[in-house]
């Protein structure tokens, strides 16, 4: 009885939201400014010829900076929640020769694709986030294949990991502070340097975002259902 009531309520709520959104789509006001034309006009003076990259890293670079900060905060919370894991063999790795063989083919390709996406970002679809996603996927595959990333193990490795995680936002803020010191607004690049500065920021961001996504995957507490299963069975029987 209670279940039916819940489904009814949920259906009503989602229908109401659908109706409200549909009304908003139907009754949407005409756009007062022609944003595509404004962007196309300003892109001529921006550091990146591709309009979306220009919006992301030039006109609205503040958004992008804060977005990277959000990603960093997520990693920091995950780091705080992680458990002390024994330094034994990696429990996540699948001992699968096929996966390892495929990885040795895929890994160079993935790194190449990531580099291409990063470079292509200034003139066509692509950019730091896409490149970082591909790099992070390569890292996740490596971990599934049981390959340990030795550079990030131990005390010094952890410090190195944190330094690389902060690198992207740090470069971003440094560029912003530099433009502010040079007498311009925060993150308002000088026209001659804009292209190089955006590329430098994107390079640092790619590394940091890829590592952040990979660490979020790595920091998930390990599975240990085995010990808890009898306990859970007892509880469901009661």
């Amino acid at each position, binding site marked *: 009885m209670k279940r039916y009531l819940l489904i009814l309520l949920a259906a009503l709520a*989602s229908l109401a939201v659908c109706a409200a*959104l549909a009304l908003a789509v139907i009754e949407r006001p005409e756009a007062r400014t022609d944003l595509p034309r404004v962007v196309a006009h300003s892109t001529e003076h921006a550091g990146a010829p591709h309009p979306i990259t220009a919006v992301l890293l030039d006109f609205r670079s503040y958004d992008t900076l804060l977005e990277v900060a959000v990603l960093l905060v997520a990693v920091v919370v995950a780091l705080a929640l992680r458990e002390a894991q024994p330094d034994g063999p990696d429990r996540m790795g699948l001992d699968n020769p096929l996966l390892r063989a495929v990885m040795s083919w895929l890994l160079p390709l993935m790194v190449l694709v990531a580099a291409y996406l990063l470079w292509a970002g200034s003139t066509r679809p692509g950019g730091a986030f896409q490149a970082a996603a591909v790099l992070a996927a390569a890292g996740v595959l490596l971990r599934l294949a049981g390959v340990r990333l030795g550079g990030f193990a131990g005390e010094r490795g952890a410090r190195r990991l944190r330094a690389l995680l902060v690198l992207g936002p740090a470069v971003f803020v440094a560029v912003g502070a530099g433009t502010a010191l040079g007498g311009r607004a925060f993150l308002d690049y000088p026209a001659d340097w804009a292209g190089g500065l955006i590329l430098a920021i994107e390079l640092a961001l790619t590394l940091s975002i890829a590592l952040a996504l990979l660490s979020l995957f790595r920091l998930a*507490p390990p*599975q240990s259902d085995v010990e808890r299963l009898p306990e859970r069975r007892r509880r469901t029987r009661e």
Partner: protein
Amino acid sequence: MSATVLATDALYAWVGVLLCGLGLFGFIIHRHLLRRLLAFNVMGSGSFLLLVGLAQDGRGIDPVPQALVLTGIVVAVASTALALVIFRRWHRVSGESTLPEDV
């Protein structure tokens, strides 16, 4: 008016409206935390589609909503991953996959 509303221009926006409703429905009726997270992500995808779809009014590609959605996708990925870390931690601590105060 109705001709422009139902044109294929706004197709993405309509799919977004649908996904928002579906996501909310799933979010309310499911108790399992993973299902809730999935439903929440469906809702998020709906709002992204809505944002991109609303900008398609025949004046060419509008890069501003696309950049906003790109930002939103990264934040959604970060929050989903964080939620998964917290869920697994909760599962380790309590052995439960739902929250106790849920009806």
